[in-house]
């Protein structure tokens, strides 16, 4: 029989969702907020997890980046998902819209990122309802980091950036499945991040226009897709300002290449002519 682990003791619930079904308010027994996951009963849990990881083939290459500048936050990502050497999708949404003023990026396990970002969005909404004000980026990233820390060592693979705009201005946090939570001005996550950092760090200035910042982000992701086999597809660039996020551009990387490096017509030295036909 599979063991059901109830982790509600690790949760800090400001409010617990209630259902009104006519008998008056009472707590919902199967509240989606309580993370209780079925675990396999086996002698070697870690070994089983390692083997299932192989089966699920969760490897994903990615390039995502985000940086703060004077007009807010720019967030950009590619859109390729790979399982080992096979490209499972070229149209993955790696920038997740948590709410109208907060974005999360996806790197690592696709299902892990999708599920926990959706869960974070729910928690942020609950915070708004019970506190009558929006949650701060620091608070949201802390909620996520605490959840991920409680699953530390169990094989979750998440490297995400929480970017947004709150009362203190633009906010950017890096959160990962090891439990790290770092505040910063510039981050790039994924297998292509090294290439993206090269372009990003070189071109970054705090005072830029939104178009310049977007072009820097686009160029950095493009550079990463050029050199990293596991990154590709489309470059999506978002800007988060005081009024919330806005998608600025989505460009196919293949087309972007010829935009940056147009085909040069090489001068022809000598035209090839047909060989003279043999006379009878």
């Amino acid at each position, binding site marked *: 029989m*599979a063991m059901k682990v109830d982790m509600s003791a690790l949760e800090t619930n400001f409010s617990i969702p209630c259902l009104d079904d006519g008998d008056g308010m009472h707590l919902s027994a199967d509240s989606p907020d309580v993370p209780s*996951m*079925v*675990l*396999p009963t*086996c*002698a*070697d849990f870690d*070994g*089983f*997890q390692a*083997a*299932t990881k192989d*089966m*699920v*083939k*969760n490897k994903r290459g990615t390039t995502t980046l985000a940086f703060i500048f004077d007009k807010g936050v720019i967030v950009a990502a590619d*859109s390729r998902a790979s*399982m080992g050497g*096979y490209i*499972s*999708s*070229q*149209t*993955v*949404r790696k920038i997740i819209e948590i709410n109208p003023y907060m974005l999360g990026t996806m790197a690592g*396990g*696709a*299902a*892990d*990122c*999708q*599920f926990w970002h959706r869960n974070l969005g729910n928690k942020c909404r609950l915070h708004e309802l019970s506190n009558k004000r929006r949650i701060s980026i620091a608070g949201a990233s802390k909620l996520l980091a605490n959840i991920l820390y409680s699953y530390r060592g*169990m*094989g*979750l693979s998440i490297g995400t950036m929480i970017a947004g705009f709150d009362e203190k201005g633009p906010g950017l946090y890096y959160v990962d499945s090891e439990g790290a939570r770092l505040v910063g001005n510039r981050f790039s996550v994924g297998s292509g991040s090294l290439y993206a950092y090269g372009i990003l760090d070189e071109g970054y200035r705090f005072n830029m226009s939104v178009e310049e910042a977007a072009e820097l982000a686009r160029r950095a992701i493009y550079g990463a897709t050029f050199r990293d086999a596991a990154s590709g*597809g*489309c470059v*999506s660039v978002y800007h988060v300002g005081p009024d919330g996020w806005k*998608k*600025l*551009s*989505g*460009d*196919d990387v293949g087309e972007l290449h010829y935009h940056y490096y147009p085909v040069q017509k090489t001068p022809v030295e000598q035209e090839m002519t047909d060989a003279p036909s043999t006379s009878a």
Partner: protein
Amino acid sequence: MSRRGDWVYENNGGTCVAIAGADYCVVAADTRLSVGYSILTRDHSKICDLADKCVLASSGFQGDIKALHKNLAARELLYQHQHNKRMSCPAMAQLLSNTLYYKRFFPYYAFNVLGGLDSEGKGCVFTYDAVGSYERTGYSAQGTGSTLIMPVLDNQLKSPSPLLLPARDAVTPLSESEAVDLVKDVFASATERDIYTGDKLEIVVINKAGTTREYIELRKD
């Protein structure tokens, strides 16, 4: 597949494909059930009708798939009782994702393709990995023959990415009969080169009028 004492999964093979059109959706799967180099049966359906406009095809470990289909069908019935209507395809898509993720540490060994019509009547296909990450696409193939079939579908059906801005129109230009013919062709090809795919092909077409089912013979070797 018993490389460990407590390895509880096996792969029963098979391939599932789905194609979405402007007002139809085609979901197809072969009917071969294998274990190792043996065929257990030539007549096992991998397709489950979850709602009137929503059909799920899964390949992988049929024990987990049977449990998953039963679980989703029961949840859909509960939804009907509670909301007085059948579940829409996008709603079922998220339910399936959550169901798969709740077994994140002991996964369902199921590679799923969900197809149907959305609330506007347009075809939709959702493709999943084993732990619940999902994406709405125009077409998908999962299972042992998927690496043989996907390149062909990309060649015939690839449309501008939904991530492009300014958005470009991404409707599959094929008609319903053309899509069904394409599905028959890709399965015939996959059967040639994948030992786990063959025997019979079950094709389910969902459109405004309802759901129709068709069976095509495939190579049995």
